[in-house]
């Protein structure tokens, strides 16, 4: 991995994997800066929508964030404690998206 890229582990679970080719775990590489700013979680969400998402984007993204009802963990911590979309990604970060909208 070159020094100008971030290697991230991304996981989809709780049924979200169905939108991502039925595959749960991905390793993705993003530039350290996006639109002249340090790459953050919002950039990752939009990148995932444009690059990995296979179907029904409205079930993953709403405006520039995840659809309400999708939980996000940054390195095993609720993203609400990490600044949500503004969280600046670091090399090696693990981001997990969990749908709460499936089944009971």
């Amino acid at each position, binding site marked *: 991995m070159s020094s100008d890229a971030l290697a991230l582990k991304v996981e989809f679970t*709780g049924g979200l994997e169905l939108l991502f080719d039925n595959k749960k775990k991905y390793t993705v590489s993003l530039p350290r800066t996006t639109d002249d700013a340090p790459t953050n979680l919002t950039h990752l969400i939009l990148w995932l929508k444009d690059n990995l998402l296979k179907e029904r984007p409205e079930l993953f993204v709403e405006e520039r964030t995840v659809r309400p009802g999708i939980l996000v963990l940054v390195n095993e911590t609720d993203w609400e404690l990490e600044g949500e979309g503004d969280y600046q990604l670091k090399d090696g970060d693990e981001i997990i998206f969990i749908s*709460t*909208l499936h089944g009971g």
Partner: protein
Amino acid sequence: MPPKPCALCHTERAIIKRPKTGQQICKDCFFRVFETEVHNTIVDSKLFKPGDRVAIGASGGKDSTVLAYVMKTLNDRYDYGLELFLLSIDEGITGYRDDSLETVKRNQVQYGLPLKILSYDELYGWTMDAVVAQVGRKNNCTFCGVFRRQALDRGAAALGVDHIVTGHNADDIAETVLMNIMRGDIARLGRCTLICTQSEDTIKRSKPFKYAYEKEIVMYAYFKKLDYFSTECIYAPDAYRGHARAFLKSLEAARPSAIIDIIHSGEAFEVAEQVQQGMKAQQTCKRCGYISSNDLCKACTLLEGLERGLGSLAVKDSKKLESDSTTAPDASMRTIPFFQRTPGAAAAVEEPTPA
């Protein structure tokens, strides 16, 4: 951002922001407060008494999987003295329920709880696959919902249990309040926020997760690494509920207390006496003995429609079908076995096999 310390123990790093309180707490404190709040709900509402036989309605999904785990944990920790069972309904949906039942079977072993599975096929003679083949995808949720409710009661009667607990959480209840308001369903609006429902002829049912947020249930399952199944039903989901859910989730994103606030609103509604007088009294179904507000219960009406090949009519115009049918069915028609409760009599269950 620097790591934040837990608002409760002040030592460990916070990992979750609680939607109910906004508190930022660590993993161990989260497990403790989540479990303690469910315990407090159970105690405050006096849901159980020692020696009760309690069936956990288990679908293999997140809510019922967490419920089974927490019920077992609390029963051991606080010595409730309950005999717990897992009760699953097999709707007969290939590629969905068959997979989720595998999860329940693993839970049976993981939690050491006896399991009873009752299928629509054995009870009604129809799987949901067969129902959908006749009525299509539009109205099949009506069949499934009516059939499941009665199947749970009948499974519970077969187990000889006193009580069924289900995994309905605060989000589910708030969603139901909204739906009942939008449909003008006054009778259900009054009932849907009750933590425990019981009428003379049905088995007591309760919702220990009434005040538990879905976010916390999912986080609990995640951090405890619980084994649950999370695929959408392959038949069209209930579109009306879907809209209510999306609306509720948007409200929650703007203000997390919205969920509990809506439940409180639902609880605070009082149905005026003149409205109550207009509601139908409960009786028992003349055909199958199950509780009903008409001569024929909803399940018998729907089943008769299916048997006559008029399944869709049963949903759209059940009154017409009812007035056409006598309470005695044709001999050739499949009917539901008569409903009888035999308290204490246990049916054969699959004992958990050692892991």
